[in-house]
């Protein structure tokens, strides 16, 4: 496979040589043939440029998160106080809200007790006296039309019939 009609290595033999699996015969030919050696050197040169460039590009990429992932506990002291502080603030807000609500409820209950005090005997007596005075004032006013026209004892004949029917 080392030589063809043109006395140069075939593409397959060149590829074998590049891969590192070339035969001894191919290596001998490469050592002697400048044209075949140039092909091999050209590819190696292209790959060297590619490897150097891409490695430089990789080295320039910023390192992100490796330390954090490798030592997750190392970040705890930094973030823990912030988290605890936030939790404390939230807890404080809840406590203040609950306390305020309790205060409002207490003041509301006090207002109710003032507005509606428990009834005492004296108060009941006063109320009854007031109601009696109102009743007297109303009764001592103008005469009722029933009294004025003496309609108290007169009954409609139909009512008598009905009364008789009921009594039956």
């Amino acid at each position, binding site marked *: 496979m080392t030589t063809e009609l043109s006395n140069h290595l075939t593409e397959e033999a060149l590829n074998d040589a590049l*891969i*590192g699996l070339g035969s001894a015969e191919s290596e001998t030919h490469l050592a002697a043939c400048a044209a075949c050696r140039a092909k091999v050197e050209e590819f190696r040169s292209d790959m060297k440029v590619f490897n150097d460039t891409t490695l430089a590009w990789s080295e320039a*990429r910023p390192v992100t998160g*490796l330390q954090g992932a490798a030592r997750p506990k190392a970040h705890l002291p930094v973030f823990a106080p912030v988290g605890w502080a936030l939790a404390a603030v939230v807890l404080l807000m809840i406590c203040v809200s609950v306390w305020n609500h309790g205060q409002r409820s207490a003041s509301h209950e006090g207002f109710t007790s003032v507005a509606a005090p428990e009834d005492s005997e004296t108060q009941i007596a006063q109320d009854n006296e007031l109601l009696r005075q109102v009743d007297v004032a109303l009764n001592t006013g103008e005469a009722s039309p029933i009294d004025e026209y003496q309609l108290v004892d007169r009954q409609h004949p139909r009512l008598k019939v009905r009364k008789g029917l009921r009594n039956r």
Partner: protein
Amino acid sequence: MGTTAATACLMDTFSSATIESCLSERVRPISELDDIDALARTYRARLLRFATYSTGDPDLAETIAQDVLLRAYNGRESFRGECSVNTWLTGIAIHVIRDHQRSNRYKFWKRVKSAAIDVQDVAAFIPADGSSPERQLLAKEKVKHLTQILETLSHNQRTVFLMRFSEDMAASDISKVLGMSESTVRTHLHRALKAVRSQLGASV
């Protein structure tokens, strides 16, 4: 220790049974794996490059590189020193990338993926080696074109190509890490190399 045991240890890094087996057969004291900062300083860029060009997504590659370093650090007792640390890490990266490919998270990333490789951005990192501006421009175009060619390869072809020509791994190590036969690895390498060389040659 036989080759089979070595392969099993490399392929199944996180199996407790394998770790115990590796521990009992460990022949080399570990040192650089004990310091995750040193591990990241030395290998993160290479892992990031491999993951970026393997997945085509730089943002996902950041996550993968970080995941690989953490897994390597946590499972460092399983490393027996029979291969280079870089090969061992690349093997872990293969597993992590497969996990991402299988998971729904990766599907989500595929759906909303907006962070493709920015070839202009990558090409801007051409090393200033004192060459002429014309050569710098030509090198920049080569890098851009090679990046685009790699995206056209199948996942397996791209992976073996990167492992061989970027990570400088031997075909035998690639076959162990990927769990493929060496002939399959050679087939993928040949196809990938043929595509890359033909397209690179066509562009010149």
